[in-house]
């Protein structure tokens, strides 16, 4: 059975193809369109998936959309009615956006793909999140918690999943918390207040939190109170997102927390405002963690299961995930590589396969590499045409050459095999560097990523070595598989791992099994033999404001225009030819 899953129209649109119960491919539209957070209908992603699998749209048994669009429209309309007349400004835009495209998704899919409408199915938004989290995890029975900004009505759900021995599958969402009460919206409101982009920069708040102290927890708790049944409710007096899309927080919020930061205002921790912003981030981070720990602890007591699957955009918060693992009572916590809306494309397809069509359960390969494969020849061709230095090496020599370059303080763009599905670079589209000094971190932030100084970088290490350098709780290495947890760097190693040690002594670790990315694993071992520490700094292969590179030529052009010293794909090791002057536009006029 061939099932195509689609997520679109909010942010991070994507497509995923499941054939006979197993994922064949999955890719975010932004990787192909090259527009970050592309929310449009993922036609390029769909076309690539079908082409990759060698099937035509007519061969599809079903196309599954990741949410019920009319139910979502009902929520938007109901909220406009509930907030009448304050919602008068946002109402026309909301209606134009919904009625202009979003509610006609069945017709849009039918017209793009030419499939009969009866083949187009829908899942609930959080059911797709739950399926993406549970059906891709190596567990047979688990509690499930999904949390994001909002889906149709739900912003958070709790339930459980069961992959039975008779081959049937069950995912049951027991209860939900509904919009406007939302942990995701709470965090996003602070993201906006701190001058960052909503739905994009939430991880900056997490990074900033380490610089502050949670001195405003009491104030944040005025915004979110616990209900007697163990859930939570937001005090909507502090929020404006319920009535307008233009602003998330209200005047009362500003009264409570002070002047908001503007987008281009530098964060200087030596100033009172800079410290206040950091304290704000630390406080909302603490409240988010406490709330999630309480919710998951209650879910553990209720289900008595040992495994927890987390889904939804909130599951990208690695600090909270680590606390859940340590404090909720669950022995193992699984977060998929794409817990956000993009992952819903895969979740929706798997949900339809197992629960709508009742197909037998199958183990899904536990890796994130479902995207397009890099063409190394394309890199070599472009580099040679431009007169750059291209070395073609056998595997051992390539590893030695790369490890030598890294040990010498060079920064390497690394492309290998199929691209990752999800927001993290997990070893197939990565920028790698030595993790030992703060200077390297600052150089990466300044010359390559063009981003704020306070942003940390993540380490990658073979799973066998992880415990030596990082304080991992039981289950921590598993959470680190897709870089989903933040753990302390062992104090004795912090000075020698200064490039990846955040200000609070933590790091968002990726623990790498040889089978998941054998070439990177080999490189880590080679680097370890040279330096004594098999740890590398691993950051996504892109610059600020752009999606992670997909094709070799995209990696090559990124390498050409920033401070990356070398780029690797297949057997090729490419460096900049120092003797060749950069092409100038004057040459174009010759």
């Amino acid at each position, binding site marked *: 059975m061939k099932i195509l899953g689609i997520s679109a129209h909010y942010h991070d649109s994507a497509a995923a193809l499941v054939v006979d119960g197993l994922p064949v491919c999955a890719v975010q539209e932004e990787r192909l369109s*090259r527009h970050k957070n592309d929310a449009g209908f993922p036609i390029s992603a769909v076309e690539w998936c079908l082409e990759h699998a060698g099937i035509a749209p007519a061969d599809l048994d079903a196309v*599954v959309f990741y949410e*019920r669009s*009319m*139910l979502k429209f009902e929520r938007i309309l*109901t909220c*406009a*009615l*509930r907030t*009448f*007349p304050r919602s*008068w400004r946002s*109402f*026309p*835009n909301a*209606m*134009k956006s919904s009625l202009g495209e979003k509610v006609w998704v*069945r017709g849009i899919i039918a017209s793009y793909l030419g499939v009969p409408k*009866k083949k*187009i*199915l*829908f899942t*609930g938004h959080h*059911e797709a999140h739950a399926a993406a989290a549970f059906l891709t995890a190596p567990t047979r029975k688990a509690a499930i918690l999904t949390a994001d900004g909002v889906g149709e009505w739900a912003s958070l759900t*709790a339930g459980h999943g069961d992959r039975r021995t008779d081959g049937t599958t069950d995912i049951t969402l*027991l*209860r*939900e*918390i*509904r919009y406007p*009460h939302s942990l995701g919206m709470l965090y996003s409101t602070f993201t906006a207040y701190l001058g960052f982009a909503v739905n994009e920069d939430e991880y900056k708040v997490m990074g900033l939190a380490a610089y502050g102290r949670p001195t405003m927890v009491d104030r944040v708790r005025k915004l979110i109170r616990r*209900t*007697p*049944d*163990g*859930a*939570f*409710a937001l005090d909507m007096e502090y929020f404006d997102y319920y009535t307008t899309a*233009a*602003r998330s927080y209200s005047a009362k919020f500003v009264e409570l927390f002070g*002047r*908001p930061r*503007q987008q*281009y*205002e530098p964060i200087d921790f030596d100033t009172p405002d800079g410290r206040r912003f950091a304290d704000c981030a630390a406080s909302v981070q603490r409240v988010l963690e406490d709330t999630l720990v309480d919710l998951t602890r209650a879910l553990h007591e209720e289900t008595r299961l040992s495994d927890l699957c987390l889904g939804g955009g909130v599951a990208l918060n690695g600090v909270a995930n680590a606390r859940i693992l340590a404090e909720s009572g669950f022995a193992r916590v699984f977060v998929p590589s794409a817990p956000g809306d993009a992952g819903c494309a895969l979740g929706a397809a798997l949900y*339809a396969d197992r*629960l709508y069509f009742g197909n037998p359960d199958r183990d899904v390969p536990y890796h994130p590499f479902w995207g397009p494969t890099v063409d190394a020849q394309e890199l070599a061709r*472009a580099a040679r045409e*431009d007169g750059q230095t291209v070395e073609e090496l056998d595997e051992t020599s390539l590893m030695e050459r790369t490890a030598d370059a890294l040990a010498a303080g060079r920064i390497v763009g690394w492309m290998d095999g199929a691209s990752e599905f999800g927001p993290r670079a997990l070893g197939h589209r990565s920028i790698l560097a030595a993790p030992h000094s703060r200077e390297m971190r600052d150089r990466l932030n300044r010359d390559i990523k063009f981003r704020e100084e306070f942003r940390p970088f993540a380490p990658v290490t073979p799973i066998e070595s992880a415990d030596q350098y990082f304080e991992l709780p039981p289950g921590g290495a598993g959470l680190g598989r897709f870089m989903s947890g933040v753990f302390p760097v062992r104090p004795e190693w912090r000075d020698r791992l200064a490039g990846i040690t955040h200000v609070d002594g933590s790091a968002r670790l990726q623990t790498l099994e040889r089978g998941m990315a054998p070439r990177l694993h080999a490189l880590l071992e080679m680097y370890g033999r040279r330096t004594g520490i098999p740890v590398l700094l691993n950051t996504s292969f892109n610059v600020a*404001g*752009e999606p992670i590179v997909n094709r070799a030529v995209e990696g090559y*052009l990124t390498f050409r*225009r920033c401070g990356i010293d070398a780029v690797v794909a297949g057997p090729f090791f490419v460096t900049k030819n120092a003797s060749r002057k950069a*092409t*100038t*536009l*004057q*040459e*174009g*006029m010759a």
Partner: protein
Amino acid sequence: MRLSLGARVDRMLRPVHRWIWSDADRRVRKLLAFAEVEGDGGRDIIRAAEVTPDPLLRRLYLAHAIDELHHSDLFRDRGAALLQAHHARTGGAPASNVLPGGHGLDDLCVEDEPDEKLLAFLHIAEKSAAGRFAIYREVVDDDPPTKAIFEEILRDEVFHMNYAYKQLTRVSPKKYRRYVWWARASRLWKRYLRLAAVVAGLFGRILLTLQYFILLPPFAWFAKRAERREGLGWIPVRRDRRQSPTSQY
């Protein structure tokens, strides 16, 4: 440099431009908006470099894109500096949406365009931008750092305009004039579409706002009453929800 019709109109509107740039808040907004537009333009041209089969064009597009991204940084840094100074003087009053998004007036559709069309489009767009930046340079006399930025960018835009034309004559020696005219017409058509969309949007907004105040009040009363009856906290999930895979509800 021969001025286009748009540039001549812009010249006549110089007092309007002077008025726009005279206000500190508007100046900041313009600069930050330019930063966005130049940044988006730079990324579009990088995309052109990624998809072109012509190695020379790939290198030239890359150099062009680096310029555009540099312009974006110049505008952003200056806008941010003025914003800081403005904030220090006025004590705040931040606007919640200082930065308009989007790709400006000159949207590129790189994926679908052959190099000839793209080069013609770049030539026309850069020529227009050069004309406009020349005016902006004149109307910010009171602000030497901003004026210096416009001067630097203006020099680059002239280069961009000329290299694009030269390369167009290289890749399409027989039809390059036709491509330039086509680019002009296409630009006008896009402007018309944009204007039409704005007008249609305005009408739509007026009609929807009228409907909001005329039709919605009774429903709003019921919705508010229903909301008051709703409890807070956990809501059990209906067991029948998964039984309708074809339903959008």
